[in-house]
């Protein structure tokens, strides 16, 4: 380490690549910097790398479930399976073949952008990408073309993060920006009924519908059928109760790779809250907000979708995943403790409003998170202002 260092330091041959070297070095070895002459002489064992890796670990249950479910949905749609646990190996391999390339592409594309920016802008490579690189694959369908994954990742890292100055400076959640980019640029590959389940060269079972549970619920509202009935009878040619509440909760449904399982999102939430990495206030208030808004919709119900029991909002679509992993991004969320309650609550409520009242976007969590990302500084502004006002009032008393 010490031998190669001079090559990259000022005056060395590879001076311009210093930050690339530094990233590699500090990844392998914790640096030997010591604390300064004045100030804290000892430091806490935490660093940003460890914090970020904690988030990655919290995502692993959702990832593994997503891989298996991708295979499961494939066999289910093509008539290859009826039970959840049969053909275990097949499902796992099918899932891996589909999902791993997406992860690799996201990491490679995003990592490259990070490295280029670090070298040009002369800042250290940021650990934030460890998380973004795995979040992006989890919020797209397994059938997304790889070039779209790469393009979305590059777009999100550049536009949502690097133009603002890198990790810690961004306003929008990077992974949500990637998804929003795909949603608006290539809607054909990320919406509708056809994209959520991989069929490959096989054909679907007769009468199979690839609609997500969210779409089923929405259409039930349009058709005037009670949502719970519509969910219960969905795809009944293939088996009873495919969209039962427990299946929705565990996540045996079509959807983006990592978002289907509320259970796995909750496991991730436990890890994040237990390690103190994510704010429990945002998670709790997010779920509460969705329930409250769902309940208000019940009271005002003019169609069947509005009358859907509020707990269904928790298990449909990507709400749980979005609240646990996207809304809690410390950089783009509200940063004051009071602000976090308001921020989470509004994300939950907005998600349900968008879902129920907006015909164009079946999934509300993406727009709700991005919208509240933009408003988080405003919430914080008022919380900080209240703090200043308390100080001023004290002075005049």
């Amino acid at each position, binding site marked *: 380490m010490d031998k190669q260092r001079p090559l990259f330091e000022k005056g060395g041959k590879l001076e311009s690549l210093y930050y690339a070297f530094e990233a590699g070095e500090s990844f392998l070895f*914790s640096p030997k910097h*010591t604390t300064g002459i004045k100030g*804290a002489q*000892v430091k806490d*064992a935490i660093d940003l790398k460890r914090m970020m890796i904690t988030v990655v670990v919290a995502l692993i249950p959702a990832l593994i479930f997503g891989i298996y479910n991708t295979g499961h949905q494939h066999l289910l749609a093509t008539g290859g399976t009826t039970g959840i646990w049969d053909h275990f190996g097949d499902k796992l391999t099918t899932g891996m073949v589909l999902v791993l390339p997406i992860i690799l592409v996201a990491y490679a594309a995003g990592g490259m952008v990070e490295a280029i920016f670090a070298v040009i802008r002369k800042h250290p490579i940021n650990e934030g990408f460890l998380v973004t690189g795995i979040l992006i694959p989890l919020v797209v369908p397994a059938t997304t073309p790889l070039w779209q994954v790469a393009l979305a990742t590059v777009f999100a890292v550049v536009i949502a993060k690097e133009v603002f100055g890198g990790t*810690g400076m961004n306003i929008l959640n990077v992974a949500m920006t990637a998804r929003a980019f795909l949603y608006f640029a290539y809607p054909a590959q990320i919406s509708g009924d056809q994209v959520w389940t991989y069929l490959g060269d096989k054909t679907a079972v007769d009468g199979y519908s690839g609609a997500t549970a969210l779409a089923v619920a929405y259409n039930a509202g349009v058709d005037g059928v009670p949502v719970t009935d519509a969910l219960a009878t969905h795809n009944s040619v293939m088996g009873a109760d495919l969209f039962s509440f427990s299946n929705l909760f565990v996540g045996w449904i079509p959807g983006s790779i990592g978002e289907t399982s509320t259970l796995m999102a909750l496991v991730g939430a436990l890890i994040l809250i237990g390690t103190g990495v994510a704010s429990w206030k945002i998670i709790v208030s997010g779920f509460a907000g969705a329930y409250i808004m769902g309940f208000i919709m019940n009271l005002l119900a003019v169609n069947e979708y509005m009358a859907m029991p509020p707990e269904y909002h928790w298990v449909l679509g990507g709400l749980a995943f979005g609240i646990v992993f996207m809304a809690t991004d410390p950089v783009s*969320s509200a940063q004051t403790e009071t602000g976090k309650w308001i921020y989470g609550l509004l994300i939950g409520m907005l998600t349900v409003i968008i879902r129920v009242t907006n015909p164009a976007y079946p999934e509300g969590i993406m727009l709700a998170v991005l919208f509240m990302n933009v408003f988080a500084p405003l919430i914080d502004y008022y919380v*900080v202002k209240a703090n200043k006002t308390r100080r001023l009032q004290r002075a005049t008393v």
Partner: protein
Amino acid sequence: MSKIVKLKKGFDINLAGKPKQEFSDFATPRTFAIKPTDFIGFQRPKVLVNEGDTVKAGTPLLIDKSMSQVIYASPVSGEIVEIKRGDRRKLLEITILADKDIIFDISQKLNLESIDRDILIGKLAASGVWPNIIQRPFGIVANPANMPKAIFISGFDTHPLAPDYGFSLQGEEKYLQAGVDTLAKLTLGKVHLNLDGSKPVPAVFAEIKNVQVNQFSGPHPVGNVGVQIHHLDPINKGDIAWTVTPTGVVQIGKFVLDGVYDSSKVIAVTGSEITKPSYVRTYSGANVSTFIKGNLNSGHVRVISGNVLTGEKIHLEGFLGFYHNHITVIPEGDYYEFLGWAKPTTEKLSYHRALGLFSFLTPKKEFVLDSNGRGEERAFVQTGVFESVTPMDILPVYLLKAILADDYDEVEELGIYEIVEEDLALCEFVDVSKHPVQELVRRGIELIQYS
């Protein structure tokens, strides 16, 4: 009306090497030094002595030309052996080779009953004890021309491995009382003495009168006088309060009762690398080498004047800081560690519980921490952590960001008047992004102070 305040926010850094309540008979240090860099806000030093001069304990050595009525006196009697200057002739140290028996510069004893405030202040300022009085806001040596709204004394120190005043001030009760009585003459407001509410009142403070005694309990930084002021009588724009440590109060008391500048104090020699952590009686500015040499567990160490959160790295042959009652010796941390950011560990202390940091499972364990920086500086990412170790109604991250942006109004509105470095020192320790928090705090203070 005494107050009882219980605080929850904060964190106790539990280190190995706590001092035993006994005195060690280390060899007496031969040299002592006064370092103008210890006195924050010291602007234009003027040295009043030359190398080779002989001085008594209490002889003025230097003044700050911007506040020339306050003198900085020699802690011991002896010969000036070195006036050390650094870059651009910045004055660093005045070193005195001490006599075997200290000779004091004796002045008239003061009668507190009859003395006029202005005369009293003049005497104190000219005695050498005055720099013990610190002004809030800014944490600088108090200006004798000001009238403080109150004076605050924190009677306990919650910093890691800090000395126990209940032990180190034994036998000084008479001087403590005289010091407190003196301070009471300097303000129209109250003199507050804040004690640790989680323990019985130490004998040295049990009989004290003429002060308001308040009880504070909770984790560090509850012992910081800044935190206590925030909960007793917060400092607003335009307010001036003074703070004194108990050691300073004793020095003031000795000057009033005996007419001498007696800088002797009991200091703790602590830290995981010290074989025999204990207390020793010495004078301000002592050369620390005699306390440490032959008393070390290992060779590669960092010697700190003060505690690990707010102290200053000094040499093995370095001198104790003016305001420090405490030496800490810890291992130097200049090593690479393979995948150090990912390894699970129970040996490294962390306030956090992120992946693989298990220190929270053993809250009673005494940790050995070294001076490794534990990662590199990054932008602010994690939120809510600074707030959880700052038991004040202050938003540290917003304040620090305002300082980084040199935003004068924001810095002022977000509460810079209420803090000095030590109040946010814990933030610097727990920071995920490794910002030099205390350096930033001083930058913010100077932004306001010199504008």
